[in-house]
C-alpha cells in the first residue's frame, strides 16, 4: 500500500474513524496496528528488519538508562559502549539493507535516523527511555513517516502517544487540506515534470541545450514537489489521526543563501544532522578551520545518506563548499554592498539573492539526479548551449509533455511559487481557506480534488506510485 493508491485512500477514512471513536488511552495501540499493517502490506520481509530495529532501539535505550544509574550521570563508560554498539549495529543495518544486496528494507534510512536520534537523546539525558514497548514501536514505525520521514524526534512524538489530543473536525479538515496539497504537488506537478526530466537526463547529449537547461530547472521543482508533496501527505495524514508532525519544508526556494536553504529544506534531516553530527563534532565552537571541516563532514554524511553513488557525495560536498565560500566571501560581499549603497532589505536585492541561491541549488541537483558524474557534466555543458528557438519550433513538446500538459505543469509551478511566497511572508493559506464560508471552502476543496483526479499523472500507463525519497 502506498500513499498514492486507492487502497490507502479508502482505508485512511476508516482508520481515522476508528481512531476517532476508540478511547484515547488505547489509541496508540490502534495506530501501531495500522502502522504494522501498512508496512507489512508494502514489504513483509522488510518488516523483520523493522521489528529488529524496534527491539534493538528499545533495549539499547533501556540498558543505557539502566547502566547510567540516573538522569544526571548518563555518560558512563558502559552507557557509551552501549551507545556505540547500538549506533554501529543500526548504521550497519541501514547500510546493508539499504543497498538491497541481501534484502531491501523500505524507509530504513528514515526510521533508523529516528531510532538513532532517540538512543542518543536517552544517552545524553535529554529523553527518558520509553518503557512501553508498543509506544516505542509506534514511534519507530508510525506509518505516515515510515517511508520518507519527516525524521521525527522522540521528544515530540512519544508524549503525543501517551497524552493524545482530541481529534476534532477542525484538525481533520486541516489535515485533509494538507493532504490535498501534497497530492497536488506529487501527482499534478512532480510526476508530470518527471516525464520531461527523465527524457533530458536519459540522453542529454542528444537534446538541444536550452531544453536541457529547462530540464534541470524542472528537476529542481520535481524533487521539491515530490518530497514536499510526500511530507504534506504524511503530516496531513498524521494530523487527521491526532498526531502533530514537524514541518519538513518551509519555502526552501525563497532562501537567500545556501545556509538559509538548508534551514528550509528537509528540515527534519538538516536539524538531525545539526544536532547529532555537527554539534558533537564541535560545530562552530572550535575555530574557523574546524567549523569549515565540520560543515564539509556534515554535508558529506548527508550525501552518503542519500546514496552510495559518487554523485550524491559530490552533491553534498558542493553544498558544503557553497557554505564555506559564503562564509569566506562574506566580508568582501559586505564591503561591495556598502560601497554600492545597496539596500539589503530592498526587494531587488533580496530577489537577486534568491535567484542566485536557486541557481546554485539547481546546479547541485544536477549531480543528485544524474546517473554518473560524466552524465552530470554533460548536462551542465549542454545547459550552457543557448538554443532559444526551442520555444517556437515545437521541440519543447517532444520530450514527453504535450503543450497542454506543459501548460498544466507551468501553472502548477506558478501556483506553488505563489503559495511559497505567501507562506514565506507569514500567510497561512490553510487557515485562510478554513476561515472562509462553507461554500467557498467546499468549492476550493472540490476543485482541488478534481484537479488532482483529472490532471494528476496516475492510473494506466503511469507509475505514479513511488516517491523519489522512498529510495533513500
Amino acid at each position, binding site marked *: 500500500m502506498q500513499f498514492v493508491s486507492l487502497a490507502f485512500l479508502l482505508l485512511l477514512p476508516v482508520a481515522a474513524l476508528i481512531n476517532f471513536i476508540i478511547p484515547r488511552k488505547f489509541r496508540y495501540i490502534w495506530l501501531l496496528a495500522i502502522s504494522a499493517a501498512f508496512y507489512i502490506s508494502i514489504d513483509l520481509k522488510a518488516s523483520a528488519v523493522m521489528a529488529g530495529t524496534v527491539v534493538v532501539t528499545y533495549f539499547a535505550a533501556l540498558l543505557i538508562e539502566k547502566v547510567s544509574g540516573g538522569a544526571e550521570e548518563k555518560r558512563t563508560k558502559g552507557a557509551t559502549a552501549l551507545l556505540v554498539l547500538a549506533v554501529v549495529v543500526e548504521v550497519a543495518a541501514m547500510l546493508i539493507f539499504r543497498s538491497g544486496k541481501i534484502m531491501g528494507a523500505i524507509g530504513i534510512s528514515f526510521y533508523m535516523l529516528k531510532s538513532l536520534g532517540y538512543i542518543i537523546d536517552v544517552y545524553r539525558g535529554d529523553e527518558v527511555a520509553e518503557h512501553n514497548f508498543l509506544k516505542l514501536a509506534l514511534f519507530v514505525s508510525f506509518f505516515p513517516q515510515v517511508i520518507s520521514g519527516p525524521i521525527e524526534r522522540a521528544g515530540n512524538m512519544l508524549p503525543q502517544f501517551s497524552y493524545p489530543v482530541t481529534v476534532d473536525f477542525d484538525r481533520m479538515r486541516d489535515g485533509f487540506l494538507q493532504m490535498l496539497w501534497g497530492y497536488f504537488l506529487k501527482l499534478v506537478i512532480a510526476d508530470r515534470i518527471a516525464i520531461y526530466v527523465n527524457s533530458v537526463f536519459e540522453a542529454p547529449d542528444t537534446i538541444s541545450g536550452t531544453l536541457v537547461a529547462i530540464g534541470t530547472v524542472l528537476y529542481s521543482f520535481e524533487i521539491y514537489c515530490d518530497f514536499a508533496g510526500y511530507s504534506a501527505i504524511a503530516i496531513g495524514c498524521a494530523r487527521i489521526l491526532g498526531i502533530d508532525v514537524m514541518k519538513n519544508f518551509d519555502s526552501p526556494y525563497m532562501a537567500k543563501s545556501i545556509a538559509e536553504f538548508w534551514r528550509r529544506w528537509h528540515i527534519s534531516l538538516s536539524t538531525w544532522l545539526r544536532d547529532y553530527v555537527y554539534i558533537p563534532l564541535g560545530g562552530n565552537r572550535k575555530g574557523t578551520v574546524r567549523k569549515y571541516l565540520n560543515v564539509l563532514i556534515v554535508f558529506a554524511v548527508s550525501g552518503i545518506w542519500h546514496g552510495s553513488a559518487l554523485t550524491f557525495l559530490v552533491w553534498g560536498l558542493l553544498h558544503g563548499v557553497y557554505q564555506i565560500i559564503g562564509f569566506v566571501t562574506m566580508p568582501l560581499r559586505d564591503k561591495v554592498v556598502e560601497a554600492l549603497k545597496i539596500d539589503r532589505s530592498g526587494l531587488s536585492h533580496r530577489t537577486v539573492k534568491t535567484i542566485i541561491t536557486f541557481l546554485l541549488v539547481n546546479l547541485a541537483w544536477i549531480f543528485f539526479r544524474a546517473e554518473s558524474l560524466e552524465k552530470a557534466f554533460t548536462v551542465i555543458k549542454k545547459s550552457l548551449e543557448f538554443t532559444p528557438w526551442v520555444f517556437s519550433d515545437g521541440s519543447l513538446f517532444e520530450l514527453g509533455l504535450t503543450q497542454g500538459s506543459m501548460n498544466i505543469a507551468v501553472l502548477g509551478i506558478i501556483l506553488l511559487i505563489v503559495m511559497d511566497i505567501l507562506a514565506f511572508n507569514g500567510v497561512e493559506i490553510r487557515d485562510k481557506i478554513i476561515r472562509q464560508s462553507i461554500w467557498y471552502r467546499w468549492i476550493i476543496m*472540490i476543485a482541488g480534488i478534481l484537479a488532482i483526479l*483529472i490532471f494528476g499523472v496516475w*492510473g*494506466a500507463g503511469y507509475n505514479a506510485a513511488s516517491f523519489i525519497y522512498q529510495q533513500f
Partner: protein
Amino acid sequence: MKIKLSSILKTVGFTCAALLCIYGATVVLRDKESEYKYADFFDRADQIDVLFIGSSHVINAINPAVLYGEYGYTSYNMGGHGSVMQATYWELIEALQYTTPKCVVVDTYLMNKDYQYLDQMYEDSDEEDRATSVAQLHLNMDCWPMDKIKVAAVEDLIADKEIRKQFYVPFHVYHNRWEELDSNDYKALTGTADRNPLFGAEMRYGIELTPGIYPDPEDENGLGGHTVGEEYLRKIIDECQRRNIDVMVTFLTCSASTEDKRVMDSAEMICEQYDVPFINMQEMGVVDLYTDLNDTGHMNAMGAIKATKCIGQELSEIDGITDHRGDVAYDYWQQRADEFYGTIYDMAVDSESIYQQLNYLSGAKTVSSIIYINDGSQAFGDNEMQRLLHNFTVTPKIYHTDGPYILINDVASGQFYEACDGEVLDGIKTSLGTVHYQPVEHLFRLFYTDEDPETNLLYDDSKSDYDIQIITYDAASGEILSHNYYKSYGSNYTQE
C-alpha cells in the same frame, strides 16, 4: 468525545457534493466510443431479434440498417475491433443480460488466435500489440456496468491485475482525456451525446484495389480443434443452445490468408458437430473482392450491403424472426435505414474519388447515372475502372474499346444502355427524358434530350481537357443532381 451533529451533516454534505462532481467528471472524461456504439442497444434491447457478434469484420460487413430496410429484421452489430473469440463470448454473455434474441450470428475471423489473455497474447508478441489488444477491449467492455459478470469477463480476458483496474474503473485510464475533450463529451452529461446510427455497425467507403489471393491449406484439418478460439466458439454455441437461441456461424468475405482458410475448415467442422448452419461467404461469391473491400480485411459499405442482404436471406428461413416494417413501434429502425440509404445516395452523387462514386452508383436505388469516357482516356487501361463499369452492365463491352464509351444506367426503368467507338444511342427513354447520343469528333459529341434539345449535356468548351464525365440524376424526377469531370493519369484520377 462530543461529535457535533452539524459537523456530521457538513461532512456528509461535502462527501456527497464531492462524489457528485467526481461522477460528473467521469461522465465527461470517459471515452465515448463504447457508449456511442451501444447507446441504441440499451435503449432498444427489447426489440432486437438478431445479434451479430465477432470482430471488426462484423462491424464493417453487417449493417443492421440495411437488414431492416431490406427485410424488416431488427438486429444489433456487437462486433468489436480486434475481438478474439473469448472477448466475443463475453460480449454475448453481457448482451444476453439485456436482450434475448431469436438468433445469434457469430463470425469466426480471428478464431485461429490461440492465446487466453489479451494483455499477454503470444510469448513473442510485442508490447505495442499487447497495448492495442487491451485498448481495443475497451470498446467491448466500457459500456457494461460493473457487476459480477464484468468481473468474471475481465478476469478471463486480462491476466495483469493492474490492467484489470482500467476495466473495473475506466476513469483509471480516461482521466487524462482532458486534452481531447470536445462538445460531444459534455453532451454526455445531459444524455445527448452522439450515438451510432447503424446499430453498432461502422461503414467504410474506400476500395481495396489489390486484394491478395492466397493458396488453400494443404489439408482440411482446420486448426486442429483445440485453439482457444475454437473452444470459445463451442462455448458460444453451447450458451445459445442452452437458452434456445438459434445460432448461425459465418466467415465473412475478406482477402483470406491460408490461415483464414483453416479457420473456415475448423468452423465448418464445429458447426457440423453442433448441427448449426455455417455460412462461408468467401465461397458464395456474394461479395466482389475487387470492388467491395475497403482494405484486405474489411468490407466497404457496398460489400456490407451485399453481405447483409445475403445474411438476411439466411435469416428469413429461421422461425420467429419477423418483418417489423410498417409497425409504428419500429419507426426508429426505419428512420435509421432511410438515413443510411441517404448516405449512399449522397456518396453516389458526389464522392471523394471516381472509384467510390462508380461503386456507389452501381448500388444506388434512387440515383441514375450517365458515364462518359472519351477516346484515348487512360481509364481504358485501368482494370479497376473497367471492373467497376462492368459491375453495372455485366457485358464485356468496356473491356474491348478504346473509346469513346458511354453508359446510361437508368434506375427507374431498370435498364442500362452502353455504346462505344462510333455507336450512337437514339431515343432512349429515361427519367431524364428521351435521350440522344452521337459521337462527332475527339473533343465534341452530342448528348441531348427531346425535352431540351438546346442543351448538349456532354459538351462544355471550358472542360474539354477532362476525359471522363459522370452525370447523376434523380431516378424519380429526372432532376440532374451532379455533373463531375475527371482527368485520368494512369490509374490516378483528378476531379475538377
